[in-house]
């Protein structure tokens, strides 16, 4: 890696003692000696193992659940169903008023994706929990399911989640988050070329080497210590407190040594049910995802569809951009309404375009609920935007890098969401990339600056 100190030297103090120094990491000695203690590197006498009975169906009504055989299985200590969860509602973004409360901790009456948690089995050993889980009998009435976002948005599609009443999240702005800037239709009318293209992604897993999990220890004084690899301590504590209808003062979360997160450990999934198990049994409880669960049950990065329609002039200026984004939330919201609206704030990308129209939708389908991941709400949008930029440049016969210089945002430029650009540095990144990749551009672009408009 090289630091190119020549850029922005006039606005940067470089005479610091500790900042800017490549100090060794304080945690590395623990890592290389195997002494770093991850949550699972603890062992408590009498610890129970929690295994989840999951839906084999994408969409089904639960007619009945029979846990009697499982409860009799040797080594089983407790079997939990929806009725055992004090406030059986997954409350993830309620603390910042995003909501919605559209998901249960354990399925109650219905399942809406293959893998949804239905019954939790707590046993002396993992094996006993697995064997007992196999003995839980759930009678399902299978319902029609929908997997394709376009199908889900059509009238008459199976309703994934009755909470919403339709297969999309309802924002205060309506069926989508909207950005309206300038007159996009006038821009298309004025443009030399109009190009509309559609982009698609598939769900992506964080795949941390350490799977999601926690160990809960009853402290004997009505308090519970939860050793967890959550990415957000109080987020998890406060949500658990609501779900378990338990004062937050009874909960003690310890973590902060995590075997990779990438956004996958932001969902508050394992802790509430494990703490409930510890409370009802008085025993330490370990609930850790198997690798299969991490890969297919934990929330992935959402699949997205992005439709971009651009009006571009022969001289390289983009004069209008309309973006319609669809985020496949799966069966429940989790963080997806937030992610979809983050996309609305990100489009039309780091370019100054006078006429912009953005709609971003959060769509429900019968698949594993998606949630946050590294680059949440932006990564797939950037793929779509930057491939579109390449297509536009070729459409007008312009070098793709030079085309970006022409449209790059600079300090003071008004963005579509009506914030003036501050601290821009796209131009300088492209100038340095031009040099590093030996991809020459015209001298006028190398002379540009993010500081001042116009060269």
């Amino acid at each position, binding site marked *: 890696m090289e630091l190119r100190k020549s850029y922005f030297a006039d606005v940067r103090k470089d005479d610091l003692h500790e900042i800017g120094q490549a100090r*060794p*990491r304080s*945690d*590395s*000695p*623990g*890592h*290389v*000696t*195997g*002494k*770093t*203690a*991850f949550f*699972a*590197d603890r*062992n408590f006498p009498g610890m129970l193992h929690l295994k989840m009975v999951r839906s084999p169906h994408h969409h089904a009504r639960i007619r009945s659940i029979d846990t009697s055989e499982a409860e009799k299985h040797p080594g089983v200590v407790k079997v939990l169903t929806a009725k055992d969860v004090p406030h059986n509602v997954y409350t993830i973004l309620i603390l910042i008023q995003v909501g919605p409360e559209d998901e249960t901790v354990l399925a109650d009456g219905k399942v809406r994706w293959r893998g949804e948690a239905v019954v939790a089995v707590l046993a002396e*050993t993992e*094996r006993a929990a697995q064997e007992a889980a196999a003995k839980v009998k759930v009678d399902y009435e299978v319902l029609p399911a929908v997997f394709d976002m376009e199908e889900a948005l059509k009238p008459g599609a199976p309703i994934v989640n009755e909470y919403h009443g339709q297969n999309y999240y309802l924002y205060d702005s309506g069926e989508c988050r909207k950005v309206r800037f300038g007159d996009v239709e006038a821009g298309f009318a004025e443009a030399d070329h109009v190009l509309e293209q559609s982009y698609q992604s598939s769900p992506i897993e*964080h*795949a*941390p*080497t*350490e*799977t999601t999990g926690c160990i809960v220890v009853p402290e004997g004084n009505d308090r519970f210590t939860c050793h967890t690899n959550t990415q957000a301590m109080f987020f998890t504590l406060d949500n658990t407190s609501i779900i378990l209808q338990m004062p937050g003062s009874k909960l003690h979360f310890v973590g902060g040594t*995590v*075997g*990779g997160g*990438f956004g996958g450990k932001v969902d508050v999934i394992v802790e509430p049910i494990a703490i409930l198990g510890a409370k009802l049994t008085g025993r330490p409880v370990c609930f850790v995802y*198997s*690798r299969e669960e991490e890969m297919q049950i934990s929330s992935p990065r959402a699949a997205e569809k992005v439709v971009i329609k651009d009006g571009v002039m022969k001289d390289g200026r983009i004069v209008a951009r309309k973006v319609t984004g669809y985020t496949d939330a799966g069966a429940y919201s989790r963080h997806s309404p937030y992610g979809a609206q983050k996309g609305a704030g990100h489009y039309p990308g780091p370019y100054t375009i006078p006429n912009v129209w953005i709609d971003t939708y959060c769509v429900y389908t019968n698949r594993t609920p998606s949630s946050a991941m590294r680059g949440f709400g932006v990564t797939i949008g950037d793929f779509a935007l930057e491939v579109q930029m390449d297509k536009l440049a070729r459409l007008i016969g312009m070098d793709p890098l030079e085309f970006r210089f022409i449209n790059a945002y600079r300090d003071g430029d008004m963005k579509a969401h009506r914030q003036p650009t501050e601290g821009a540095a796209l131009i300088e990144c492209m100038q340095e990339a031009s040099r590093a990749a030996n991809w020459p551009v015209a001298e006028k672009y190398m002379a540009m600056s993010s500081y001042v408009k116009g060269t």
Partner: protein
Amino acid sequence: MAKVPVQFTLNGSEKAEFIDSGTTLLNALRDKIGDTSPKGGCHQGTCGACSVIIDGELRLSCLTLAETCNGAAITTTSGLAEGGVLHPLQRAFLDAFATQCGFCTPGMIMAAKVLLDHTPNPSRDEVVEALSGNICRCTGYEPIIQAVLTAARANSQNAA
């Protein structure tokens, strides 16, 4: 549940335990013996985080039943530093900033150690091959490869 005796050396010291038959070496090491340096990243044999050295060979402790290790000599990453002095590989991982979350690190170091034990001056391709059963999600592998090559160079200089 039938208990079976297991006895082996772990990092040079004798260990003897009664365990449930069918217990994996990974679980025996972590839960019974208290060596948590091998990590359970998948329990499928697909991530390498549980790698240990058994009688000089790299093995996956998650797929090895403990009772099949009677009489074996087992090495784990927790046993590499001698008298508080880091093994050259551990030193190289530190210096190369080759750890991020650290979860894969003990397994990576085991895989690298077996390589250097047999091939003191490996090529880059040999390092890549040696690490190929170990997943890292943070680093992009390059710093780890560089750490192993650096440790090999340090080894050969010490030997010279």
